[in-house]
């Protein structure tokens, strides 16, 4: 029996190998580019999108290969150093692509892709080398983070999206009195905690103005305004689920989508999953009003660049790959990212298809604030976002104070961060 299985496997491998040979060895003179992504769920959409590119570039054929998101970094960093790697590949943003730049795996695109002019400077920052300031990727899409609310639940309890902090707390009390969890927050998926902190309290520390000061070295994370901002989550703790630390992102998405919670702080990327859990959800979005003592008096919209496409330095098809990257800077591609991939494209002038996404982007364009730890403090280890996530979890468990969390963040970041 075992031998027979062995032979079957061998036969299968042989068959696959010969199939692969015929596929790559097909005799047309088109150049095949290999494109890598960390979103296997998007492969079909990419193939559809790339048809447009193939029509305009009959001599190039792009093959999409996707790997699991959680394994992608490892696969990519080894793939770039050997044969059989990608020509063009999806890159993590900000600090996430620095190791690849440091290792010399990527080609700077500033002078090679003229279409980069179709992006705002802040979008290009997501794909910039920290040391040389050069752009190594064509920005693909961005995310925003805000509070979704269930319009039906709000209407049932006669609540309006709050304009002030007090109104928000009053709404939360009303909901809690009715047995509904006000905010569906997850403490088990700790990566969400820094986002909660920025979403509820970037206004408290000052948003982009604080970012500038802390990058210049004028303030540190032990600044009273930043400590107070961290402490805002403590003040909201009673409105979070009682078992928050045992709940993950999907748990709280389900709580919200099934009406057990009225609001959920979530990313633009959660729109699709929320609608999958409950297609009848009647959703609205708002940003947290500034808490007492806030430095910025109007709500801010948290946002950041998620991904870009870069060029493998060892690719044998530099010319063709640059043509593909140039096409990725066009409104034609950007619109497909919005319509087919259902993401927020960063190409100037492209509008998201979903009106709710359009609201988020409009809010971001009007009053943006960075996801501070991701955008600026992931260029060295320990990562700022990891320090903050671990610290906030301890703070919400009552094991650390906001001041101690801030001190730990500062201690970790100061190991590698030079203003």
């Amino acid at each position, binding site marked *: 029996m075992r031998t027979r299985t062995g032979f079957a496997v061998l036969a299968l491998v042989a068959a696959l190998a010969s199939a692969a040979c015929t596929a790559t060895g097909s005799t047309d003179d088109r150049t095949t580019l290999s494109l890598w992504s960390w979103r296997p769920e998007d492969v079909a959409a990419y193939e559809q999108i790339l048809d447009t590119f193939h029509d305009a570039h009959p001599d190039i054929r792009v093959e999409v290969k996707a790997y699991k998101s959680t394994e992608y970094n490892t696969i990519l*960093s080894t793939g770039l150093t050997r044969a059989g790697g990608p020509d063009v590949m999806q890159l993590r943003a900000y600090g996430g692509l620095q190791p690849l730049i440091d290792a010399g*795996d990527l080609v700077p695109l500033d002078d090679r892709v003229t279409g980069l002019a179709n992006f705002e400077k802040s979008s290009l920052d997501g794909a910039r080398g920290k040391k040389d300031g050069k752009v190594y990727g064509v920005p693909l899409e961005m995310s925003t983070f805000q509070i979704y609310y269930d319009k039906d639940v709000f209407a049932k309890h006669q609540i309006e999206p709050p304009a002030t902090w007090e109104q928000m707390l009053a709404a939360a009390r009303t909901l809690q009195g009715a047995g509904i969890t006000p905010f569906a927050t997850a403490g088990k998926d700790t990566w969400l905690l820094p986002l909660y902190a920025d979403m509820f309290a970037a206004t408290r520390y000052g948003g982009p103005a604080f970012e500038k000061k802390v990058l210049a070295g004028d303030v540190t994370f032990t600044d009273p305004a930043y400590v107070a901002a961290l402490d805002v989550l403590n003040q909201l703790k009673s409105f979070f689920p009682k078992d928050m630390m*045992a709940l993950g992102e999907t748990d709280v998405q389900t709580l919200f989508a099934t009406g057990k919670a009225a609001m959920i702080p979530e990313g633009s990327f959660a729109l699709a999953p929320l609608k999958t859990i409950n297609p009848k959800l009647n959703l609205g979005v708002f940003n947290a009003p500034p808490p007492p003592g806030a430095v910025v008096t109007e709500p801010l919209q948290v946002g950041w660049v998620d991904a870009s496409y870069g060029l493998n330095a060892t690719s044998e098809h530099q010319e063709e790959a640059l043509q593909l990257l140039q096409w990725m800077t066009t409104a034609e591609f950007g619109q497909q990212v919005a319509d087919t991939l259902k993401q927020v494209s960063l190409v100037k002038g492209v509008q998201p298809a979903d009106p709710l996404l359009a609201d988020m982007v409009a809010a971001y364009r009007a009053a943006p604030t960075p996801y501070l730890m991701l955008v600026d403090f992931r260029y060295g280890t320990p990562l700022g976002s990891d320090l903050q996530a671990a610290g906030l979890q301890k703070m919400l468990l009552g094991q650390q104070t906001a001041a101690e969390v801030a001190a730990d963040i500062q201690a970790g970041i100061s190991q590698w961060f030079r203003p």
Partner: protein
Amino acid sequence: MRRRLIAFWFVLPAFLLYTVFAVYPLLSALANSFWRWQGTARAGFAGTDNFTGLFTTFPLDQQLWPAFWHTMAFFAGTMLMQNTVGLLIAVLLAELPVARRFLRTVFTVPYLVGGLVVGYLWSLLLSPVFGPVGAGLDAMGLGALARPWLGDPATALPTVILVNAWHHLGFPILLFGAALAGLPPEYGECARVDGATAWQRFRRVTLPLLLPSIGVISILTFLGSMNTFELVYALSGAQGNQPTGPGGATDVLGLLFYRIAFAEGGTNAIGQSSALAVLLFIATFVVAVTADRFIRSRS
């Protein structure tokens, strides 16, 4: 000479496979741990910096020891459960006249499922919102006992240990079962004739004869615990960026390694994670060999 030559050719494939797939990776990890890395490129000789860095760099210095002690507790708890509950079930099964094989299979089934799957299933069972464990306690009027098992720093590690013991219970049952079946029945019968009670027979006759099995189970549990990863990873919701569990309550060495190597994206990830891997290997190797020697000398 001819015989030697033939033997050589027979040994060669295994030797090559072992060298390529076991010796080479181990040696390369050792080599990697002495270099400073920039992504996947070597950036200069680091000496022992990667090793000392584990103990002195914030926040690693605050994570290494808790992770170590959690791993030890994980080992101690699991070993205790296996050598008590596992042994008890094996003894009861051995005495059982019917359905012995069936029940042994039933107890062994979880052992055949991967740790990720077991962890995921238990995280669902224990979910305070949707999990049947909390609902069941509620239904029995014991709702006050229901708690966020994995979300409370006080209960998280014991819960993980219990799930792990449950997961691996089939192994001691099989091993003790085989050992019990191999015991010469004369010893027990002699004791019975001499008037020993069932407990005395177990305590004075069966248990001493089972000591080698207890040793084997303890060593294998130690090896498994030092390398444990997927169960804790899945129970904590599969994210590897920060110390696992509420306030880092279930963080173990395997997860610390995973963080350094894959999750944090540090440019020196290869050097630092290799250093931890080398330390882990040495500790595991030394303890396993010493314990094995000790057990052999005693039996």
